[in-house]
């Protein structure tokens, strides 16, 4: 090569002729510089030649990334619901549903086979297992095996590990925009209007419905024309009997409540194990308001409608409680 980068027809004679060209001393250096990698890498280079898909250094990262994402798919819906990733978890929920809590589901035929509907359920149990069981029950026993999309409290959707997991399971953050968007797509949406007041309820207040938020669920139903389906969950109040709220611990940790149960925090991680009570999930007849979407901007009527749903749900809970015997066996 000349200084200008073009190969010169007459290469300048080298000042020092390499010994290997004279054939005096054998060199391990190959004549062809491309074979140098083979000398250095040996068997590994031959392996890479046989497997061109591993040529890039990123192939190593790929192996790890593919392993990490082995149960996921690329086919997500707009909220990040991954049907395939959610499937293995069904086994855990089935165990809880059939063995641990022996759920009895009544009135599943009240859930429409297609089209939008808003499930409104009472919330309880410190940890939101009731949502998981309502969802699993409908997926198991409904004729169309519909997937209910549960609207989940902020405090769960922003926690590390829970954020991506809940998304894969198909849950979305509870806010009016998300609810309306899901209902507009004719999904089955589940809400717990009591919110954090319900899930962190004290044991002595069990089965007494807390305030139903600000009536956002009624506004949602009015705006989208979705029927409201009341769902009464009985049995979930006793899985973590919340004896007292130790907010002096919870507040500095940024938690909305910190429960004191017979097992938590006394037994440490064992305290997260819910008690095996007997559950009933009663699904009531759909409530369809005879108001138009314009009523959504009239808070007094919205509040009245919310109260009507609340009393319907309270009646359903009370009638089930009256027929219930033991908390654990149900007889």
């Amino acid at each position: 090569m000349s200084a200008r980068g073009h190969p010169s027809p007459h290469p300048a004679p080298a000042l020092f002729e390499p010994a290997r060209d004279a054939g005096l001393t054998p060199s391990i250096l190959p004549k062809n510089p491309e074979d140098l990698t083979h000398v250095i890498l040996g068997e590994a280079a031959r392996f890479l030649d046989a497997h061109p898909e591993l040529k890039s250094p990123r192939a190593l990262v790929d192996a790890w990334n593919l392993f990490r994402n082995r149960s996921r798919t690329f086919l997500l819906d707009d909220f990040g619901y991954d049907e395939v990733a959610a499937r293995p978890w069904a086994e855990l929920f089935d165990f809880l549903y059939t063995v641990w809590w022996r759920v009895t589901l009544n009135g599943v035929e009240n859930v429409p086979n297609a089209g939008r509907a808003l499930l409104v359920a009472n919330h309880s149990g410190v940890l939101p297992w009731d949502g998981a069981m309502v969802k699993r029950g409908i997926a198991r026993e409904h004729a169309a095996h519909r997937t209910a999309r549960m609207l989940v409290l902020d405090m769960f959707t922003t926690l590390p590990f829970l954020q991506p997991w809940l998304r894969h399971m198909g849950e979305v953050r509870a806010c009016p925009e998300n609810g309306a968007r899901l209902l507009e797509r004719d999904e089955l949406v589940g809400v717990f209007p009591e919110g954090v007041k319900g899930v962190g309820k004290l044991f002595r207040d069990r089965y007494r419905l807390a305030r139903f938020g600000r009536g956002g669920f009624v506004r949602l139903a009015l705006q989208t024309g979705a029927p409201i389906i009341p769902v009464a969950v009985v049995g979930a109040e006793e899985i973590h009997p919340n004896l007292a709220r130790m907010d002096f611990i919870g507040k500095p940790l940024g938690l909305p409540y910190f429960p004191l149960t017979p097992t938590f925090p006394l037994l440490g991680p064992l305290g997260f194990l819910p008690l095996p009570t007997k559950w009933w999930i009663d699904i009531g007849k759909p409530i369809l308001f005879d108001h138009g979407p314009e009523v959504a901007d009239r808070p007094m009527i919205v509040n009245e409608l919310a109260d009507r749903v609340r009393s319907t749900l309270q009646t359903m809970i009370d009638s089930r409680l009256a027929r219930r015997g033991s908390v654990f066996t149900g007889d």
Partner: protein
Amino acid sequence: MAGKAGVKAARPRRNGSGGRVVHFPRVEETPAKRLKVVVTGGSGFFGERLVRALLARPDREVVVFDLVPPGDLLEVRHRFLDLNLPFADGTLFKLLKEEKPDAIVHLAQLRSPSHHATYAHELNAIGALHVFAAAGEARIPRILLGSMSLVYGARGDNPNFLTEEHPLRPDPQDRFVGDFVEAESHARTHARRHPETRVQILRFVPLLSPEVRDYRARLFAAPFSWQLLGYDPLVQALHPDDAVDALVRALDRPEAQGVFNIAPEGVVPLSTVRLLFGSLGVPVPHPLGYALYEAAWLAGLGVMPGVHAHYLRYSCVVDDEKARRVLGFSAKHTTLEVVLETARARFGSGRLVDFDAVADVARAARHAYEQRVRARPRAAAQGVAS
């Protein structure tokens, strides 16, 4: 057809070509006036693409205001403008008085965080102030401001899809995003002071294509990056062609004022972006993650300041429903397609990822979107400005 002939007749005669002068027959109707568009930052990555798209249209005339002429586009009129000078608004006013454009498209912005924070602030925030000040004095009837979807801020309590009415809540420490928020506030003030002018703000989802080299593309393409442990936000990526298409459509619809989110169909988790790019996400607890991004940024090795790592923690996904309805915009590439094609073009060989299989999935997803969009009732709402 008559309109086309009219345009031909209006073209100025070439001088000094030495050829025969052709006299076109006079057309009775007056030729449609060409809309004269000034593109600030028309030599940048984004601006140059817009200029090329406008050159292809016979009913548009383009003038570029920038530091340098746009690449090899010799036929484009270029005027020197440095928005960083303290009295750039006066210079710009004189230029606007000479050019008398019908619309300004303001794209002279840095679209990556800069170590020269003052320079970036002067250009992105104060530059917009200059543009609106000069445009107000020169009575320019229309201004388009290119903004970005990150102005909503990544927050845990964001709805999954942010609409234009949602308040802008970026982290106050995030100066890069804050400058775009300030530019938008100047646009709103301008619209209030001059009710007769039409202001359009287009909030673009961050661009991605094999050619894009902004901080986000560099982060995705890095061999490794810190992953905030236990967080995996959903991200969107917009193809530059779609962004240009949105700008062209916004120019076509002067009656459509206000803010528009410009977004593609579909979302992709950050982990999937890393998977397709073959980038290793090193998991670190999120407080440490912020610190590591900040440390790398201060050391000159990172792509963004630590505070911007919010966007690797929470989703900031926008809804393009209004742009579809009012502008008639619909992105031709889905997010998954953009990420996939970028990853394949840049790091496609010698990989374990089966890009063809992913492409099949992307095609299936696109089909699902098209089905859904067709099912939605939209005909009644066409052309409604809000």
